[in-house]
C-alpha cells in the first residue's frame, strides 16, 4: 500500500478526514438511486441539531441547523 512516510490517500493530503470522505462517497451514491429508494435514502441524510455557545456560564441563543448533511 502506501510507503512509509507517504502523505497517505489524496483526500488526507488535502485536509479531509476519513469520516467526511466516507460521508461524501455515501451521499454521491445516494444521489444516483432510482426513485423510491432515492427519497428514502435522502431522508436518511437529513440532520437536525442545535448548537449554543456558552459564554460566562450562560448559553447564547442557539443556532439551529437542519437540512441535508454536509460539512
Amino acid at each position, binding site marked *: 500500500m502506501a510507503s512509509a512516510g507517504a502523505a497517505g490517500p489524496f483526500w488526507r493530503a488535502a485536509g*479531509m478526514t476519513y469520516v467526511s470522505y*466516507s460521508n461524501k462517497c455515501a451521499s454521491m451514491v445516494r444521489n*444516483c438511486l432510482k426513485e423510491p429508494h432515492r427519497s428514502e435514502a435522502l431522508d436518511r441524510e437529513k440532520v437536525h441539531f442545535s448548537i449554543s455557545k456558552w459564554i460566562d456560564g450562560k448559553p447564547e441563543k442557539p443556532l439551529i441547523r437542519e437540512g441535508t448533511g454536509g460539512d
Partner: protein
Amino acid sequence: MFRQASRLLSRSIAQPQHTKTKVAARAFSTDVPATPTEDSPFSQSWKKVIPTIEPPKTPSSYMKPRPATASTIPTKLTVNFVLPYASQLAEKEVDMIIVPATTGQMGVLPGHVPTIAELKPGVMSVHEGNDVSKYFVSSGFAFIHANSVADVIAVEAVPVDHLDSNLVQKGLADFTQKLGSASTDLEKAEAQIGVDVYSAMNSALMG
C-alpha cells in the same frame, strides 16, 4: 457489550480508578482476549497482602475467551454485512465474498488469513452456491477473523439494480469537468472523489 455494563455497574466492590477506565475501553472492544484469565500478578500480590478478601475481578475475567480457531478450515464463511441503519446480512453462511478493497478486488474464502481491509467505492458480491448477490458499497471496512467470520461495514450499500445509469453518467461528466476546473486542494480532492465514485458506479452498471 452492553450486557457487561449492567453487571459491572451493579458490582458492590469499589473498583480502583484504572480498572474503571479499562472498563470503558473494554466495553467498546469487539475483540476478546485470546487467553482466558489466570491468576494475574495483581491477584497474586493482592492475596499476599489481604488473604482474607477475594481479589476484585477485572473486566477481562468477565469476558469470554476468544473462540478458538478451528483446526480444520470451516466449509462456509459467516458474513455479517452491516450498515448504520440496517443489517443486510446477519451471520449468513456463504461460500465466498469478493470485497472492493483499496488494494483491489479481494476474494474471501473460508479459512482466509485474518485481515482488515479498507474498502473503496465498488461492488461487493456474495456467492452462495450458484447465487450471486451484488451490492454497490460506498466505502467502509472489511474485517476477516481467524474463525472464518467476515464483518463488512459500510456507510451506504445498495443492490446494483437500484442505481440509475442516467444520473451516474451525468454525475461522472459533472465531476470530470469539476476536476478540470478545480483550484484549491480541497476542491481537487472532492472532484477526484466524485470521479472515483461515479466511475466505480459506472463500471458496476456496465459489468
